[in-house]
């Protein structure tokens, strides 16, 4: 199997999986917080936050990538600050993960927000009268009930991250072994003579990963759904 793909192609597959996993895992807590705020919070600037979260969905990915470059580049306001603590994102795989996380964030938040809105707040009231403090109510009532939404959001975010191209290539370029993900690798292969075979192999890998993710999520959703069916 390992001879089937060239070492460089393997690296791209591994890197893509790493970037997508890290992007999904790292944005999960933030996504949950923002989803909860948007679903339940009544505060000034709520619609501004809503717009900001959804912006990457509407903007051309290249624009998002460029804004990341401006903000998180070595000389950017945030990137410069992070660099002082030894954290460099531009032209690193971590930067690719950031780009993917930003692009997947709206999808993650949207799925979780819908599931939080669907939770009957009366159940949370009932839990309160039984002695559960608000953080515990969230842990033992809200969280289990929104688990299907969390899984759905994570799958969407992961899928988006696997396919991300525009923002990633703009922010962290296309460096083999560091920032060259599946999509960038396929793009590169289509630009060189004789690259079609490699592009086709990576395309098949890409399809396999997507199908596996989809089936996995269906399976998990069914498992969870059976547990919390009303």
């Amino acid at each position, binding site marked *: 199997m390992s001879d089937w793909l060239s070492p460089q192609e393997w690296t791209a597959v591994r890197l893509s999986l790493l970037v997508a996993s890290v992007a999904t895992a790292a944005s999960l807590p933030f996504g949950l917080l923002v989803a909860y705020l948007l679903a339940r919070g009544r505060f000034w600037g709520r619609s501004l936050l809503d717009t900001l979260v959804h912006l990457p969905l509407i903007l051309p990915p290249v624009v998002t990538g460029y804004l990341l470059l401006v903000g998180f580049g070595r000389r950017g306001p945030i990137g410069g600050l992070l660099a002082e603590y030894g954290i460099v994102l531009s032209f690193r795989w971590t930067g690719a993960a950031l780009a993917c996380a930003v692009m997947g964030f709206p999808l993650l938040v949207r799925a979780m927000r819908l599931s939080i809105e669907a939770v009957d707040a009366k159940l949370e009231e009932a839990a309160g009268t*039984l002695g559960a403090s608000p953080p515990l109510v969230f842990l033992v009532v809200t969280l289990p009930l929104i688990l299907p939404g969390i899984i759905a959001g994570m799958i969407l975010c992961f899928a988006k991250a696997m396919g991300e191209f525009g923002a990633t290539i703009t922010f962290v370029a296309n460096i083999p072994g560091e920032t060259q993900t599946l999509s960038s690798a396929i793009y590169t292969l289509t630009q060189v003579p004789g690259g079609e075979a490699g592009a086709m192999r990576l395309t098949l890998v890409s399809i396999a990963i997507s199908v596996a993710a989809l089936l996995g999520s269906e399976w998990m959703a069914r498992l969870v759904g059976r547990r*919390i069916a009303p």
Partner: protein
Amino acid sequence: MTSLEVDVEHRAGVFHLQASFRSQGRLTALFGRSGSGKTTLVNAIAGLVRPQRGRIATDGAVLLDTRAGVFVPRHRRRIGYVFQEGRLFPHLSVRQNLLFGRWFAVRHERGDAADLHAVVALLDVGPLLERRPGELSGGEKQRVAIGRALLARPRLLLMDEPLASLDEARKAEILPYIERLRDEAGVPIVYVSHAVSEVARLATTVVVLEEGRVAAVGATADILGRLDVPALDQGGEGGAVLEARVQAHDDAYGLTILATPAGLLQVPRLSLAPGDTTRVHIRARDVLLSVGPPHGLSALNVLAGRVLEVGVTALPHEAASIAVRLDCGGAPLNARVTRKSVELLGLVPGRTVFAVIKSVSFDRGAGGGLESVGRCEDGAFVAR
């Protein structure tokens, strides 16, 4: 004796609640039409609503005192709440639902396995323990919800129309459990209802709410007999509540003789022992009046009495009928008759009359048993 003290004022939109009462009862019924503020009031007791002004205390604990800046959050109040629609956690089994409160209890307040056994036995939920709420009937759900609230060891149990979403058969299934709870669990109960029959059967104390204000408060028998509380009337559903004691059984005719303050009543045989007590509810619309001793009637429970008061506040759609309050040997009895009869018979306060009772509802009340409620109609009664 545990007492409940409520004095709150709360404004939400156009609705204005301003209610104040005290109760020492084992089961205090909050009674009123929908929109009278019953649910807002229990939500204030539970801490789900924060009244703008007032004080709530129970069992010596101050839960709310706006003047002193006290507002105990709901999870520290130890007020059990049985909601109209159960609100069981769908992701937990019945057993986990029942034990939910225990997860959060302070160690010394935490119940033990014996508690679970006692509650499971009290509510007959043993066979349901491993099921999910989705697999339960409406009546079963409410029993589990009651058990869940009890196992959190509340100082007070609130029940907000727990029977409202159930059909008659399911209601009859739950009522005896609530009676048992009142008599055996040792937790005072506040029971919200708009059904006179439930209140008459269950309550020891009644608080009548009308448009956000307390219209009347007192012992059940005193309140249900009053003519000046329109909410209680409901077309003659209201009436007298009498404590009754089984005097003897008449085996030859299959009857039970009940001694009440108003006189002896004969009803089809009850499975109670002589000396047992029960509660009798005589609806105003089931009482006929006669100015002379009646003869040749099949309805044979006839009590002699005196007219105390003739009602004036007939409901507009029932302007033809009117409530008359009687005194039968010191016990109150209500009759709903037509205005025409009042005039023809010359029913004025002081007049001696005979009350012909067509039907009696009774429950085993203080007896604490599980016999379902009975109602005896007309001909089943025998002359005294």
